[in-house]
């Protein structure tokens, strides 16, 4: 019997691809998202294709008070938890409307960080487990075009890094995923360079390998490591004039 995998934010394209990748390897799944009943079609598909058990559970990342009860209800506690929660929001709206900006912070930082923090407590107590947080290269340096989203992702990346540091001496593994551009609902209609654009399957494969090899931080396409190194190295007086 393979280890059960929890996928948070299971409706996203990357989450769906991860579900197939782990199910293909025989892992039973728990799919968590708001309005879990609508995940059932995906669950049926996963069961038919891969012959694994798939449960769908309601989960609202922004309801931080409910996180404890949500984790309590997981039986068994999963071996791997992948957090694919996130929403780009609209940068201009986030600039104008603090309520919209707060929602982006909550969906990309507060919710994901708090639920993984809650799971980390349980994994640490049990002495095993892998936590995977899907963050973003947008969090590496704030850019005018999406810094509200980027700031939330920066917070999430820092949280994962701190969690990994804290758990370094425990058997619990924390993996940060920085996918770069991915062909998903989020990027639909954007004109992105094909060489930099990964497919959700590619991201899922990279995550699967990262979990197997207990990697700390992964970029899906290696070229992003280089791009982000350059972007991070630009002096601020240059960077602030760029339009990226």
């Amino acid at each position, binding site marked *: 019997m393979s280890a059960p995998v929890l996928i948070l934010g299971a409706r996203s394209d990357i989450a769906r691809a991860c579900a197939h990748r782990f199910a293909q390897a025989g892992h039973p799944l728990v799919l968590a998202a708001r309005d879990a009943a609508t995940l059932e079609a*995906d669950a049926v598909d996963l069961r*038919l*294709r891969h012959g694994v058990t798939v449960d769908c559970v309601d989960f609202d990342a922004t309801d931080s008070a409910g996180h404890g009860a949500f984790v309590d209800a997981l039986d068994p506690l999963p071996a791997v938890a992948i957090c694919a929660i996130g929403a780009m929001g609209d940068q201009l709206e986030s600039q104008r409307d603090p309520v919209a900006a707060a929602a982006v912070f909550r969906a990309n930082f507060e919710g994901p960080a708090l639920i993984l923090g809650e799971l980390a407590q349980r994994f640490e107590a049990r002495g095993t487990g892998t936590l995977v947080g899907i963050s973003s290269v947008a969090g590496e340096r704030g850019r005018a075009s999406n810094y509200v989203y980027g700031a939330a992702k920066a917070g999430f990346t820092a949280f994962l890094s701190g969690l990994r540091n804290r758990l370094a001496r425990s058997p619990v593994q924390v993996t940060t995923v920085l996918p770069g551009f991915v062909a998903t*609902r989020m990027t639909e209609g954007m004109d992105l360079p094909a060489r930099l654009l990964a497919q959700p399957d590619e991201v899922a494969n990279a995550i699967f390998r990262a979990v197997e090899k207990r990697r700390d931080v992964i970029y899906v396409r290696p070229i992003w490591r280089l791009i982000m190194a350059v972007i991070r190295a630009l002096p601020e007086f240059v960077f602030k004039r760029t339009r990226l």
Partner: protein
Amino acid sequence: MELSGWGRYPRIKGQLHEPRDEAALAALLQADTPVIARGLGRSYGDSAVAAQTVSMRHFDRMIDFDPDSGQLVAEAGVSLAGIIDAFLPRGWFPSVTPGTKFVTLGGAIAADVHGKNHHSEGAFSAFTDWFDLMGADGRVIRCSRDANAELFANTFGGMGLTGIILRAAIRLRRIESGWIRQTMIPARNLDEALEAFDETMDATYCVAWIDCLGTGDNLGRSLVMTGEHARPDELPPERRARPFDTPRHRDIPFPFDLPGFVLNPYTVRAFNALYYRMGARKAGDGLVDWDSYFYPLDAVQHWNRLYGRRGFMQFQCALPLEGGDTGLRRLLEAIARSGAASFLAVLKRFGPQTGPVSFPMEGYTLALDFPMNRRSLALMPELDRITIEHGGRLYLAKDSRMSRETLRQTDPRWSEFTRMRHEAGLDRRFASAQSQRLGL
């Protein structure tokens, strides 16, 4: 963006929509411009391209499977490759499969694809119990042999022009291993090949590779290959315990477009001669894994790049049993005379015709690839003429260049189809570059 079929000719500028649910799909039908659905883009010509093309890639879920009957219900974007991945290890295989597993259920129904078992078991339609079709008004109706039977029949081979196929119920075949028992029969010429077809009519699978550059005594030189799903006791002892384990093929990428001059009559002639000799040496029985047997070309991703940037076309006709042999001989003579390079041409025996616009007819089918160039294009009208004179027809899933007149002369069935489309208001909602070229 620019869209094309597998042959990369023609290329059509248009918009590609990728709806995620039925509501989004129905909304696309509200527009004034007609649309055409597209699966994995394996039809060769312009069947699945239009100014407004709708990718069905998000409709890719399996819905139900009944292990007693082998009936699988799945959304139209599910591919045969996905079905094989999921069900071969459990002892099931598609009942009919074309030469690539990268086709969707929707595409297989729209083209009513055939496989190496058409002579013995029929086309894809023979194993389809029902499908759901979104009509011109965005409403979804279930079609089967009992309900909406006319629409059901017209959709097989209807090239997506009767509506958008959303999901379908197909019956899979029980198999006992992932291996095929293959028998290779070398035939020195066309007569010997057709004789071999007659003698192997009760084989489940039968297909011939034919060397189109052979002339004189060698005209129609072929390797006829029959196949049966192997039982575990027919496998070597070390494979019997795990009969569904077959070697996983590494995908060989074809990373760039081959320059056009590489494929010329000399290199192709040399290749064909070598292929025939190697095949003849292997004459007799052998075991082949399912992937190599059914999908030898799938191992090379983007093999269509072989023909360079200009792309290629495939000529595939069906000829009736009566006079079919003369027709085939004349086609082969014309091809050999023209010197147009074609390799890996395929000859098959077809069983009876089913359905009002389904391609196969009792007789023979010949399929050949040609690089897209002036010489090939000059040859096509001659091949069309021979097809017309022998009562044959052409396969729309392969066509990229036929004229309206050729279609009218080869396949008068389409005029009734076109009338039906007009009366039902389907022509204003569903059209491809091909249907507009052919006036369907």
